[in-house]
């Protein structure tokens, strides 16, 4: 089963055929009181891909996940998961979710949490397999309250795997983790992709989307600003980053045409721009004493900033 899924994924990729859509949102709007969380958002998740939903806090990422899990209903538009209403148990048994949760019961052991969640599904994965996949074998007999931050996130990740789901939702899986723990969890997520699972991951770490995703949907103010492979997103915006040391005020730099964002980094400025040359010319004219110039290609971060800034109309 796993082998054949992986194979089909490879075959499909080599042929460049689009995979079947397993979940979709069509023109979905959703408000929480006066706050418009989603505004006619459309999104498709295709079999076997890892789609990263990238956006700042409050962009509507978690709302998308909740709609797809049937934990919320859209005000208008349609949500379909495996061609069914996501609130129906038939869809829920094929889905796993890792949600942001403030407190998990601390007096159950890791294996007990997994045993309970496995009982909710008709065909759960074996406990040893879940523990191995989530890298929890060594701590399976610990109480949840005794775990480190990284281990706690892994337990939530493991809960999402219990039912051997075809489709996984990971809502900000590495938020609050240190670099080491984050990279370790990325390793576990890659194992899932290798098993042919479809994954929707939300994140506000550009690096995370770049490292894991087949496809990225940049979401801002409740709708999709841009969609494509990480490489496409970067190429389309062709953003660059200038680092330099100057006596110019931050506001002055921000006022130069073509500057998208400026960040102070110790003694230097990190300036995100769409094109480096015109901005450099302007910078050197304004401050002849400017030094320590470095120009680097855009990371997904610049691409993302450029996209959302355009959307928010702050560029001009």
């Amino acid at each position: 089963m796993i082998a054949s899924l992986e194979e089909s994924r490879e075959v499909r990729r080599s042929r460049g055929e689009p995979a079947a859509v397993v979940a979709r949102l069509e023109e979905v709007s959703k408000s929480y009181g006066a706050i418009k969380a989603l505004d006619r958002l459309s999104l498709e998740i295709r079999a076997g891909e890892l789609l990263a939903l990238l956006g700042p806090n409050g962009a509507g990422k978690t709302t998308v996940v909740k709609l797809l899990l049937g934990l919320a209903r859209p005000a208008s538009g349609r949500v379909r998961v495996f061609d069914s209403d996501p609130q129906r148990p038939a869809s829920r048994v094929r889905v796993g979710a890792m949600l942001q949760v403030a407190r998990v019961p601390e007096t159950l052991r890791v294996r007990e949490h997994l045993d309970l969640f496995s009982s909710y599904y008709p065909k759960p994965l074996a406990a040893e397999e879940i523990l191995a996949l989530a890298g929890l074998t060594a701590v399976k007999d610990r109480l949840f309250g005794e775990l480190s931050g990284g281990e706690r996130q892994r337990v939530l990740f493991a809960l999402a795997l219990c039912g051997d789901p075809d489709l996984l939702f990971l809502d900000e899986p590495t938020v609050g983790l240190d670099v080491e723990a984050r990279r370790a969890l990325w390793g576990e997520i890659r194992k899932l992709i290798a098993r042919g699972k479809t994954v929707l991951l939300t994140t506000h770490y550009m690096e995370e989307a770049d490292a894991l995703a087949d496809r990225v949907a940049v979401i801002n103010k409740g709708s999709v600003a841009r969609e494509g492979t990480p490489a496409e997103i970067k190429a389309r915006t062709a953003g660059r980053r200038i680092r330099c040391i100057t006596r110019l005020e931050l506001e002055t730099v921000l006022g130069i045409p073509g500057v998208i964002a400026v960040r102070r980094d110790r003694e230097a400025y990190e300036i995100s721009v769409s094109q480096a040359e015109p901005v450099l010319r302007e910078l050197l004219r304004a401050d002849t004493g400017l030094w320590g110039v470095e120009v680097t290609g855009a990371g997904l971060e610049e691409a993302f900033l450029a996209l959302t800034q355009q959307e928010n109309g702050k560029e001009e």
Partner: protein
Amino acid sequence: MATATSTLPAALETRLAYNFKLWLKEAKYEYLKNLRLRTYSVSVVVFPVMFYILFGLILGRHGDGPIRAATYLMATYATFGIMGASLFGTAAGLAAERGLGWFEVKRSSPMPPAAYFAAKIIMSVIFSAQVVLLLMLLGVTLGGVKLSLVCAVKLLAILLAGSLPFCAMGLALGYFVGPNSAPAAINLIYLPMSFCSGLWVPLMFLPRIMRQLGEILPPYHLSQLALGVVGAGNAEPGLKHWEVLIGFTLICLGIARIGYQRDEGKTYG
């Protein structure tokens, strides 16, 4: 029995087995979770036992009335005990779990919500049984309470059935108190309610106004049923007490249902 099972369609049989296992595990882990949670497992047992030892066994040993204090207070502190086990067993966990995102994690799985609530009630009833048995043991061994086996079983059965209204009350509370303020809020209702119902000090020793207040409170009615078993109840018929308790249960379940739907509305709105 065997023929009945064999006539069941295989699919239904598997489904029943799956559901039975699921509900059983939900209850088992709810129990384990709370057993290891000292703030629950220790305090719900220690307080009624401590009060009973203090007021029923130590201070009450000189009483020479028709009903000995050790007997009377065994019934009322058992009522007090099952109230605590039920209220804290349902309300505290529910308020924290729905307020801090855990219930949502469970809701995103195929878990039937009814199994979740049933587990809390089953867990509370088991703790109630532990408290009642412990108090009876203390009363019989140290307090000289004369309790036949039939009476003991009857008392336990009445108190466990009578714990259900307080489980319902706990579910209702769980929907209307905050995750962190829940224990304080529960105590604020539980302790005055117990006192006014005559669970700590018999109602006859309280001022008239408090007696009248006590007689409309559900714990008073349950304690009267319990006292009836040990021969210390008032003359009122038992049916009236059950009616009050059933009515109270229905009201609480109604409030809990409003809370549940309000929560689902927030998420399903």
